[in-house]
């Protein structure tokens, strides 16, 4: 590379970095700098649920560079280390380049026609012999909304089964359950714009610094500018997020509900409650009946700081301090992720965080919100909003509701009788049914359940025995090992479509390059499969991605998540827009249930009666403060298994490493899995740092390297779950929340011995 080119790139790099913090190093030069050789295209990061804007640099039909999108309101030009290397994943050696059918135990390359004819024939045979419920679809929060929409129509509307699930069941179903039971409608009331207006952050079960680094950066930048901003963490493990914490409460894994009740008790007792807001906008309930405010206070009386300390293991004075910090702050924003959601009482845990906001009125105003963070880039958009779970239909509709079925069937152009009124099998039940042979054929798209399911090895039987189709961009994966057919799917930058992120923002992504090899767009693979299965009249109309998106947003019109004002023509010009957005001239909605929300604004004045918030998902517009029992984990520690095992992520890797495992820089940064053990525990067990140990639970054993470090509290251990060769999910428990059906990845009982 010539010096001039090198200098040019150096200045470009500096100018881009500067622009992300609002600094112009070279006034007026940026446009010219980037005009040389590269074509830049607007996109969205392929990893977590934050929704960072990425600009893809393309040259001669190849992706050669990325930069943060300065115009994107979410990341303002910054990227984390995963996004930094995203362009390299496109050209990974493990890209699946052509369809293959397993013949005599070995994959053989076949044509698209042969592959789809084979799948269509097998699926039709199964449907004819065993009925539609012998088929299933398992999708992904990484698929585009258009892709999930077509899958939904094929399985629920054409084949006629509600056995349609996706991996968001494993990561945010409890947040859905929390919002529905507390507010009556899914997804947060606020947006990321609250971050810069918050005086206090309550981070619960969230290693924000590693799992959502760009949001962490925004929090950190806000705190640096405003030293009075406080951060409280409730998490069993010390993480890099601690570097900005003012207070950290370390509960025993799974035992934090009592802390949240104790905080609520203190908030009310010490006068931090917003009594007027409570009167106007809140009801109280326990698991069986409505409560009065007084009865709720009586319920809370058992949760003295001392009692909560006894249950949770957190010192009482820290609980009092946290409550007072929350109460004194004029505005507060809670954020949580898997530490709350992946629990057998994940819905309850979500409710109890939201309780703190409802009691104090710290919701519906700038800087205050009860805000669930999501783990995948389109879990909210495609699966939650698009209806990609077994009980849902598009636009927050339910299969149980006859009006909803009729509305969807009309737009899909299918007989309403095709859509079953009973929910299908949720994720764990679906893979149980594969094991039992009740489900005989499954289509898996853009996800890796053989590694990501809890108690994973239990479910390999069904994958091995039944007919399995895997549509993927990468090969091999733990799941393709069990596939009968693999279909190469176009990857990020090779297809257009929409991602909807945590803050209700839908963003359009351009297709920049042609797919590698013979890879094709998932939505068109499914469309063509549908046609081969005999559903031509329902699917032949979809010629472009825009055809699909336009039909989808027509189904959102008039719903709480109205996207009818966000056609492609508009999304192509914007860095996304936050729903509800009921018309093409609507600017999008910052806060739901309050002034500025078009649904709130359209309510009759008599209904609002001067109320600041009206939770229109509830019959009387009042949110619910829940008195939930302080239940602990499904599998508490005991004499035989004395350690609480938790799993999670590291900054450099993501999910099952099908993407980050292809980037040498990221692999070298964290090359292998390990189990974190507190030095006190390690000393007791005579375990040295870097020594090989066996971690054992009631479900399996894993030989792994010990990392003796003070991140986990004594009595707890932690394993990052990304690696196939150190598969943490053979240890995790598949017990699930009875409401959300989300499994309890975050805690089970374990023991360790030297290998």
């Amino acid at each position: 590379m010539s010096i001039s080119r090198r200098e040019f790139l150096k200045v470009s790099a500096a100018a881009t970095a500067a622009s992300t913090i609002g600094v112009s190093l070279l006034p007026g030069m940026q446009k010219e700098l980037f005009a040389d050789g590269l074509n830049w295209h607007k996109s969205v990061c392929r990893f977590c649920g934050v929704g960072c804007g990425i600009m893809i640099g393309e040259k001669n039909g190849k992706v050669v560079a990325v930069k943060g999108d300065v115009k994107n309101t979410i990341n303002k030009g910054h990227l984390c280390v995963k996004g930094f290397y995203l362009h390299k994943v496109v050209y990974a050696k493990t890209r699946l380049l052509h369809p293959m059918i397993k013949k005599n135990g070995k994959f053989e390359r076949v044509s698209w026609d042969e592959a789809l004819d084979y799948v269509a024939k097998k699926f039709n045979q199964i449907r004819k012999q065993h009925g539609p419920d012998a088929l299933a679809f398992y999708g992904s929060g990484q698929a585009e909304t258009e892709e999930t929409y077509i899958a939904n129509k094929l399985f629920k509307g054409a084949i006629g089964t509600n056995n349609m699930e996706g991996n968001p069941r494993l990561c945010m179903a409890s947040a859905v359950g929390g919002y529905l039971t507390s507010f009556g409608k899914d997804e947060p009331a606020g947006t990321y714009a609250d971050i810069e207006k918050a005086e206090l952050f309550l981070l619960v079960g969230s290693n924000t610094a590693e799992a959502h680094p760009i949001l962490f950066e925004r929090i950190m930048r806000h705190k640096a500018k405003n030293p009075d901003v406080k951060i409280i963490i409730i998490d069993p493990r010390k993480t890099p997020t601690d570097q900005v914490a003012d207070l950290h409460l370390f509960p025993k894994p799974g035992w934090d509900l009592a802390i949240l009740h104790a905080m609520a008790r203190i908030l009310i007792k010490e006068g931090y409650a917003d009594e007027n807001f409570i009167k106007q906008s809140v009801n109280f309930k326990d698991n069986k009946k409505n409560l009065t405010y007084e009865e709720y206070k009586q319920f809370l009386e058992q949760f003295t700081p001392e009692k909560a300390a006894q249950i949770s293991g957190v010192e009482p004075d820290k609980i009092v301090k946290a409550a007072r910090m929350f109460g004194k702050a004029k505005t507060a924003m809670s954020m949580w992720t898997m530490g709350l959601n992946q629990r057998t009482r994940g819905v309850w845990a979500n409710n109890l965080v939201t309780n703190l906001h409802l009691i104090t009125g710290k919701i519906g105003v700038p800087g205050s919100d009860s805000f669930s963070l999501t783990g995948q880039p389109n879990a909210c958009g495609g699966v939650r909003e698009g209806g990609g779970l077994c009980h849902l239909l598009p636009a927050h509709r339910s299969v149980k509701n006859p009006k909803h079925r009729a509305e969807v069937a009309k737009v899909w152009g299918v007989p309403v009788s095709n859509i079953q009124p009973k929910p299908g099998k949720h994720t764990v039940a679906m893979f149980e049914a594969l094991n039992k042979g009740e489900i005989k054929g499954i289509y898996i798209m853009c996800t890796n359940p053989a590694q990501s399911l809890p108690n994973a090895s239990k479910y390999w039987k069904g994958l091995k025995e039944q007919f399995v189709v895997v549509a993927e961009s990468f090969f091999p994966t733990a799941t393709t090992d069990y596939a009968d057919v693999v279909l190469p799917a176009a990857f990020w930058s090779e297809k257009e479509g929409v991602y909807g992120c945590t803050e209700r923002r839908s963003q359009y992504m351009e297709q920049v390059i042609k797919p590698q090899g013979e890879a094709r767009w998932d939505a068109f693979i499914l469309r063509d499969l549908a046609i081969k299965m005999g559903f031509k009249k329902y699917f032949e109309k979809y010629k472009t991605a825009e055809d699909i998106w336009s039909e989808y947003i027509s189904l959102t019109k008039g719903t709480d998540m109205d996207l009818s004002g966000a056609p492609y023509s508009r999304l192509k010009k914007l860095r996304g827009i936050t729903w509800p957005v009921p018309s093409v001239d609507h600017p999008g909605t910052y806060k739901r249930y309050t002034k500025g929300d078009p649904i709130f604004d359209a309510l009759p004045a008599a209904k609002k009666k001067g109320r600041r918030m009206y939770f229109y998902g509830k019959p009387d517009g009042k949110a619910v403060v829940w008195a939930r029992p302080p239940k602990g984990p499904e599998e508490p520690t005991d004499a035989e298994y004395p350690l609480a095992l938790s799993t999670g992520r590291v900054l450099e890797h993501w999910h099952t490493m099908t993407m980050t495992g292809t980037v040498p820089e990221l692999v070298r940064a964290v090359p292998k899995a390990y189990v974190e053990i507190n030095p006190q525990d390690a000393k007791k067990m005579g375990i040295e740092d870097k020594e090989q140990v066996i971690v054992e639970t009631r479900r399996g054993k894993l030989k792994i390297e010990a990392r003796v470090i003070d991140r986990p509290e004594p009595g707890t251990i932690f394993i990052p779950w990304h690696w196939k060769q150190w598969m943490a999910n053979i240890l995790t428990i598949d017990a699930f929340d009875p409401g959300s059906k989300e499994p309890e990845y975050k805690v089970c009982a374990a023991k360790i011995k030297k290998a």
Partner: protein
Amino acid sequence: MAIAGVVIVTQPDKTMHVLEKLNEMENVTTYGVHNDVQIIAVFEANSSKSLEEMSMEIQENIEGIMALYPAYVTTEDELEKLA
């Protein structure tokens, strides 16, 4: 050849120390301190592997760095060899 433009966020009382240390390093060019705690820098290396090693070394060995956020990266010639 790999080049990265980054924003380095420092602890408020360590900003100048971090800047000095960065300026001592070969293949690192700084572009000033901004907003009190943010340093703009460009890392250059012969390969993306070296770039990664440099980034790790900086984060591990220079006291006072709270976070390092890449804003731009190119490995143009490495990728041109692919496909």
